[in-house]
């Protein structure tokens, strides 16, 4: 090995960032030049690369519109898109002699009388099943809606943190929750991400409320939240675009539904 082991160690540290595309061009080129001749770094990239592909696949899956298919195919081949797969052909109609049709309808009418009673019974059973199925479907829809909300929340957290005008405020635990700590990230364009840990569970009928302190004397409510059972919080709040620049944040305990201005004890404060 021609490279010093320190330089190698430093470059090897970059493998993870390289795989995620998180290196600058200069860093990337340096890493590639090294890895091309370094068995160990090559192996590191190889074993981590499946993670990048895993991340690519782990995103919520959506079906692209069928118009897009036509557009893509038209653009690449310069010809019109290939036909969509198999439209079913029209089945050839059978022709009955008129007398046969009449006889058949008579026989059918007789049979139907008896059959109708059986059918009524079956309809009842099917209605019950339909009722069950509808209930299950709405339960699934509810679960999907929950999942969507979770996914949307995670995405907007990242969007806030990627904002160019990001402001960070650290909040420290107060007397009521000395172990608690919190951090808020605010961007005028993208909103507010609030994270906290070690917050005690609020008693029944009470909720935490986050306040934004500005040059204006009255604190502005950012919203209400409840920590998870481990006392952790990761919430995104929208803030009005004309919000004065925050100078601090505070969390108080308030009655359910929140209060127009802080009334309860402070749990975490950052100035």
């Amino acid at each position, binding site marked *: 090995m021609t490279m010093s082991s320190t330089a190698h160690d430093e470059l090897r*540290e*970059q493998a*993870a960032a390289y795989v995620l*595309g998180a290196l600058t061009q200069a860093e990337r080129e340096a890493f590639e030049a090294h890895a091309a001749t370094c068995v160990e770094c090559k192996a590191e990239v190889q074993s981590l690369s*499946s*993670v990048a*592909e895993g991340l*690519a696949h782990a*995103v919520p899956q*959506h079906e692209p519109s069928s118009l897009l298919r036509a557009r893509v195919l038209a653009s690449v081949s310069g010809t019109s898109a290939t036909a969509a797969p198999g439209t079913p052909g029209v089945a050839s109609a059978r022709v009955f002699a008129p007398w046969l049709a009449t006889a058949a309808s008579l026989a059918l009418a007789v049979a139907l009388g008896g059959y109708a009673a059986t059918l009524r019974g079956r309809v009842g059973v099917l209605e019950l099943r339909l009722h069950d199925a509808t209930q299950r479907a709405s339960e699934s829809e509810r679960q999907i809606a929950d999942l969507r909300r979770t996914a949307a929340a995670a995405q907007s957290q990242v969007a806030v943190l990627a904002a160019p005008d990001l402001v960070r405020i650290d909040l420290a635990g107060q007397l009521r929750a000395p172990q608690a700590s919190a951090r808020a990230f605010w961007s005028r364009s993208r909103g507010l991400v609030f994270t906290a840990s070690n917050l005690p569970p609020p008693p029944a009928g009470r909720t935490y409320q986050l306040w934004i302190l500005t040059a204006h004397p009255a604190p502005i409510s950012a919203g209400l939240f409840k920590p998870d059972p481990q006392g952790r919080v990761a919430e995104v709040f929208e803030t009005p675009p004309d919000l004065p620049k925050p100078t601090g944040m505070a969390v108080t305990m308030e009655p359910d539904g929140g209060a127009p201005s802080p009334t309860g004890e402070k749990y975490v404060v950052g100035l």
Partner: protein
Amino acid sequence: MWLLWAVIDRSSGLHRWAEDRASDEAALTRMAQGEGDAVAELYDRHARPVYSLALRILGDVTEAEDVVQEVFSQAWRQASRYNTSRGAVAAWLLMLARSRAIDRLRARRARPKIASDEHAADTLIDTGLPVDSQVISFEQITRVRAALDELPMLQKLAIELAYFEGLTHAEIAARLEQPLGTVKTRIRLALMKLREVLAGTL
């Protein structure tokens, strides 16, 4: 990015099998011979994950659709230069989609481009790196999703800011107001954890 592309191989993806991979390679060979129908075949197999990734990064249907069109156009143009012994077509398409989407994101933020997919495509040919043909299964993807949610928040944010927002580790460090070394370590820990999850050792 050639190195990444060359080793990312991992044969295509979650729902995909060896014959799919062979079909992908056959489709690319036919594309190289100018057969437009082969693009339709490739599109039908991969448009969904490619579109979903672009949509996740850009959060905009119109832009995500533009990325899909660009990715398949690029695959069409470069099919003749694609060496099928170099690895999975699906992984290549996803990587192109990510690069294109991130380029758009950076343009939106009016930042200089860091990586160029044309560069990636130009250099991905003729590397001498080994190819791994491990297949990523549905089950593995499910485990990756679950593991992502269980990562410590700053680890998760760091890799999401890198992979889906296209920030460099220095930019992530500035954003999270963490030392660069800490961010590097977090990214590394997160990826190693996910690698273990993928390998099924956890």
